[in-house]
């Protein structure tokens, strides 16, 4: 690191460390000497392993972010929430339907939403969480699936919910119901699957598998491109 880089004080679970201001929270923890086990995953904002709560000294507001996607700030007091004991309802997808009756059996707490919007405020992906809960309540699984799609299942919404809703699991169930029962199946895909299982594609591919490299190379170089 060159001299240009400014150092800041961060407080990892209350303990002070001085780290370069250019680092993410995750890198800052490693700079401080941690070898992360919990609270670290893809390091690219896809997996939701590194949900973090923080507050800046002098401020009263609790903020949240993904440790791999949030830069350290001077006076940052932080703690990770690497696991949250949210409930997951188990189900057999073939036995349920996209109906409020079925959904209420799996996740009855969804219908107890207080409308406080804490979940939406806390979402690091900027998803309107409370809105998709509302769609689920109304049985509009298509809209719920659509707007919840970018969810990383980090669990921050659940940590703030006064009604004990497990939003991310409810949303995943909604998306699976939508995809299984409301979106139409691909008709040709079903046909192709049957053809393969019936051995109808064997001859064409075995001819290739049994070809020598020169022949394959020629076919490859002259193949038609859509």
């Amino acid at each position, binding site marked *: 690191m060159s001299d240009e880089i400014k150092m800041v004080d961060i407080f990892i679970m209350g303990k002070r460390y001085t780290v370069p201001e*250019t680092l993410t929270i995750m890198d800052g923890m490693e700079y401080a000497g941690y070898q992360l086990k919990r609270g670290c995953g893809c390091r690219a904002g896809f997996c939701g392993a590194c949900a973090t709560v923080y507050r800046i000294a002098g401020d009263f507001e609790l903020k949240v972010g993904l440790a791999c996607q*949030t830069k350290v700030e001077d006076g940052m007091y932080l703690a990770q929430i690497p696991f949250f004991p949210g409930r997951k309802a188990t189900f057999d997808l073939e036995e349920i339907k996209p109906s409020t009756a079925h959904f209420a059996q799996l996740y009855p707490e969804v219908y107890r939403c207080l409308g406080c919007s804490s979940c939406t405020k806390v979402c690091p992906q900027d998803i309107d969480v409370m809105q998709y809960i509302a769609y689920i309540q109304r049985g509009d699984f298509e809209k719920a699936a659509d707007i919840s799609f970018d969810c990383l299942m980090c669990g921050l919404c659940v940590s703030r919910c006064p009604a004990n809703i497990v939003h991310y699991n409810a949303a*995943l169930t909604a998306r699976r119901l939508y995809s299984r029962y409301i979106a139409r199946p691909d*008709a040709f895909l079903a046909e192709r*699957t049957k053809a393969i299982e019936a051995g109808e594609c064997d001859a064409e*591919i075995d001819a290739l598998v049994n070809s020598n490299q020169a022949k394959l190379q020629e076919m490859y170089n002259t193949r038609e491109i859509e």
Partner: protein
Amino acid sequence: MAYTGKLGELVKKVEESRASRVGVHYPRMSQEERQDVLEKFHPDYNPNGFRDIKVGVNKGARMPVEMADVFESWSRLRDTKLDLNADPDYDVDVLIIGGGGAGASAALEAYAAGSDVMIATKLRFGDANTMMAQGGIQAADKENDTPAIHYLDVVGGGRFENVPELARALVMDAPLVIKWLEDMGTMFDKKDDGTMVTIHGGGTSRKRMHAARDYTGAEIMRTLRDEVLNKGVTIVEFCAAVEIILDSKGRAAGAVLFNLETEQYLIARAKTVIIATGGSGRLHYRGFPTSNHYGATADGLVIGYRAGAKTIYADSIQYHPTGGAYPPQLLGLLVTEKTRGLGATPLNIKGEQFVYHLETRDVESSAILRECDERGLGVPLPTGITAVWLDSPIIELIHGEGTVEKQLPAMMRQFQRFGVDIRKEPMLIYPTLHYQNGGLLIDENGLTAVENLYVAGEAAGGIHGTNRLMGNSLLDIIVFGRRAGRHAAAVSKEASTPEGLNLDHVEAYHRELEETGAADGRVGPVLLPHYTHR
């Protein structure tokens, strides 16, 4: 404005030359030039990056130095006494090591076949490269396409070095995999009538890339995980396998697990074992940054190799030309190929283009390395590394204002989080370690040379030859995860409880290490990367 100080000065050169570069066609390399830049600059051609491994079943095989280092290492159990034949901590039919897409697929199939299944995984269930795959998954499920046409793309892309039976299994199972996922409620991009939306990928001759927005891997992973949880399969998280256990007949019979949190060893006895531990980008070959998951440290390769499974194409690594380089938070992050597809060009410190922007991944990477290393025309960064510009704002000049926001929304968000507006400011990029083309050799059921030991996913090798095409990795993990799960379940049904559990192979490996002096003080597998950012 993320670029201040010296970078702020340098970015002006890019801005100054931008207008004069629009519409100017930079020449493609000739075949000779391509070969030349590859041989001189592609890491796979650099003899210093490789050495021959001195021990084990593939003694003499060429490997990246960093991989050979973890292969030539002492067992973590070297000074530990374990009673392998006491009551085990876990006793199952099928033990799956690794909780990514391959492991989850294997678990579902083995469960469906009536096996008692357990997944042991180093981090959380679902923490894997699968989760990070954005682009898509290939399958020949359109009328103008067939598995045979897909096969030709796979082997041509793989430089005709693929194991034919494995490539055949890959493409023949592909539509079955898409159907399986569709039935499971995976939210693929579809038209109103249910038809899957498919596009081209690099090296495809038909539009067969299926996607779930730009979260394809994440959508597949969370669906598979949810289904595994629905089935009540035993999941043991934060427990890494540190050795495969064999029985008195030399067959796989379980694994020694290490609880990362309590630092205790646990014995899992099993009739069959499936290694699904993924890749090795976090070994940072030649010091390269990586687009890989935190857990990609080659654990399964190491313990599988010690148990007697052979490697194939261990010296073939895929580098993606455009990994993020700056701001430092973006180091190694994948910058999608679409950015160049829309016209963004690599530029050197003078703001000059030095390579056609759509050469193949290996050639483009090599040209960037040449610019930074040999020519010394890279952009020096405050973090101590060099990089080149990728002029994203030119996209707006070529295709009109608003194109970046519309076509590259995820990329725009990723950079915006760290203060770079890629509509107005160029990106800084450097090649990133992306994929391990080879791995442990399997047959079409995922079985290795060791009886009852299977491998599935990125840890397996032979399927893609020495170059994998985009969209065939998400496919491969599910195809071979399912095949391994089914076969292991069938074998387990016929097998009795393993007896005479031992680590004799580890002792034998140690003797080889002693004779050759190869291990130095190294212990493996490494399990977790160690970063200090200093």
